[in-house]
């Protein structure tokens, strides 16, 4: 057959997935060139919820930038709080009281479980199973209630402060957290029975969306995507911050490189987060939750500073260029899903439409964080 005839036979059409589409979890748009049910080329188009947080960082004082941290990744806002606190504390050389660091770790890990729970539920919903989402939401509600009782908000936390946290945790929170972990532990095997072991789900996830370790490296993918590709890399372990070095936990790593591996990393991380929380609660020291000498008008020294934390979706890092005034000269936010989704275009080539959406879900994108 001549090439001309072939090209005539091969009829492609364009399909816009999003910005309003059930599978894109928000306003991500993917322009897909389809060849029947196969994807020829898929180009993610961002910017539908772009709010220019980086410019806000230049205009607002260091203290005023706090609320922005809850509005990037609205699902793991605590980790973002942690990064910003760490960044400015590094620049100002503020020493944080130990109790505050433990509280930070406890709340951040609770937040991570919450984020993974929603990620899990929403992912299964992408695959057509509605019920696990509701079970996950039930558990998640418990965490939100716990965090609400200390931080005052349910989603967009603005809880950490330079030198500590906004307010101390009380006994109710501690007992509530212990009770939650006791209640949550047996739920995970139930999820595995209901969802992971399901033949239909296994058929959909195993071998779908292969992302090699080298591809992750080239695209800067981190978090469960990288760990699902067999690379043991977690900022909490490799670049320890806060009190993570004092806590004993494992980094789940799967070598399969497929959607199932990424899904399993998230499920196992929830168990590890439970372990971290329990240890942190046991080790929680007495003392103040706020450093004593924190100036009201912050003026970090000149130069640029970098800080990275492990958010629920991967490495979140910030680079602030300070010129010695009370605002940042340049604030750069590196969001994990931005890099994770950037490999979608290359990895999804030649995939089936339904597989591609299963793959996209396994990257667990949060759009406000990508668009910033």
């Amino acid at each position, binding site marked *: 057959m001549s090439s001309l005839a072939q090209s005539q036979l091969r009829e492609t059409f364009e399909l816009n997935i999003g910005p309003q589409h059930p599978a894109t979890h928000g306003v991500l748009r993917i322009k897909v060139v389809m060849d029947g049910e196969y994807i020829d080329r898929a180009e993610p188009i961002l910017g539908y919820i772009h709010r220019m947080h980086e410019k806000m960082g230049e205009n607002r004082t260091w203290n005023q930038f706090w609320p922005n941290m809850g509005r990037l990744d609205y699902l793991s806002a605590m980790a973002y709080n942690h990064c910003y606190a760490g960044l400015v504390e*590094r620049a100002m050389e503020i020493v944080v009281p130990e109790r505050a660091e433990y509280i930070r770790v406890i709340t951040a890990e609770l937040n991570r479980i919450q984020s993974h729970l929603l990620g899990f539920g929403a992912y299964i919903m992408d695959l057509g199973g509605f019920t696990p989402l509701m079970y996950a939401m039930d558990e998640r509600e418990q965490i939100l209630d716990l965090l609400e009782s200390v931080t005052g908000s349910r989603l967009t936390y603005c809880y950490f402060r330079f030198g500590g946290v906004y307010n101390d945790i009380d006994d109710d929170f501690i007992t509530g957290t212990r009770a939650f972990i006791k209640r949550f532990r047996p739920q995970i095997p139930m999820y595995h029975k209901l969802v992971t072991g399901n033949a239909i789900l296994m058929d959909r996830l195993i071998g779908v969306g292969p992302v090699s370790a080298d591809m992750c490296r080239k695209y800067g993918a981190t978090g469960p995507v990288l760990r699902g590709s067999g690379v043991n890399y977690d900022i909490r372990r490799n670049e320890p911050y806060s009190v993570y070095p004092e806590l004993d936990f494992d980094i789940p790593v799967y070598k399969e490189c497929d959607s199932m591996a990424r899904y399993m990393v998230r499920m196992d991380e929830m168990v590890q987060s439970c372990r971290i929380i329990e240890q942190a609660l046991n080790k929680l020291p007495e003392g103040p939750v706020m450093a004593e000498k924190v100036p009201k008008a912050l003026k970090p020294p000149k130069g640029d500073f970098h800080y990275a934390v492990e958010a629920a979706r991967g490495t979140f890092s910030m*680079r602030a260029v300070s010129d010695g005034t009370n605002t940042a000269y340049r604030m750069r936010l590196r969001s994990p899903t931005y890099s994770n989704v950037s490999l979608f275009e290359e990895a999804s080539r030649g995939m089936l439409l339904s597989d591609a959406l299963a793959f996209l879900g396994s990257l667990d994108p949060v759009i406000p964080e990508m*668009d910033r």
Partner: protein
Amino acid sequence: MEVQAEGAGEDKAKAKAKKEEDVPRKNGLIETEYAKRGTHLDVQINPDQVVKAAEILDGEGMTLEMVTGVDWLKEKQFEVIYDYSYSGGQLFRVVVRARVDRDHPDIPTVCRVYGGANWHERETWEMLGINFVGHPQLEHFLLPEDADFYPLRKDFKP
């Protein structure tokens, strides 16, 4: 990693003294204090060495974490900062900086080396107007398609 380190002989104290001044620092390699800055190695190079540096760091198995553009209005320069990190084991963070003229902000792209640089460079172009020569798709990304301004430039007035 020695190739791009032209001024590697420069000793630490000298470099620190230089940093205190306001003049842009000379090309070279500084070991920074991790606890203070969050990076281990700070490398200043010419814009045309960016790709070479990326290739070297790629050979070492490092990841390009992000690309940052900074507008130094007073010095009439743009600074492009590449953050590299090592995900293979021992933590190691390298910052590569290059400064370009503000009137002719041309810098070669590292897309060919790191696929992930595509989006980062595209964003930097969009926000600051730094032209990444050889970039496959310098189109509007986060901003609307008809945006004819560079919002992160210091002289940008909304």
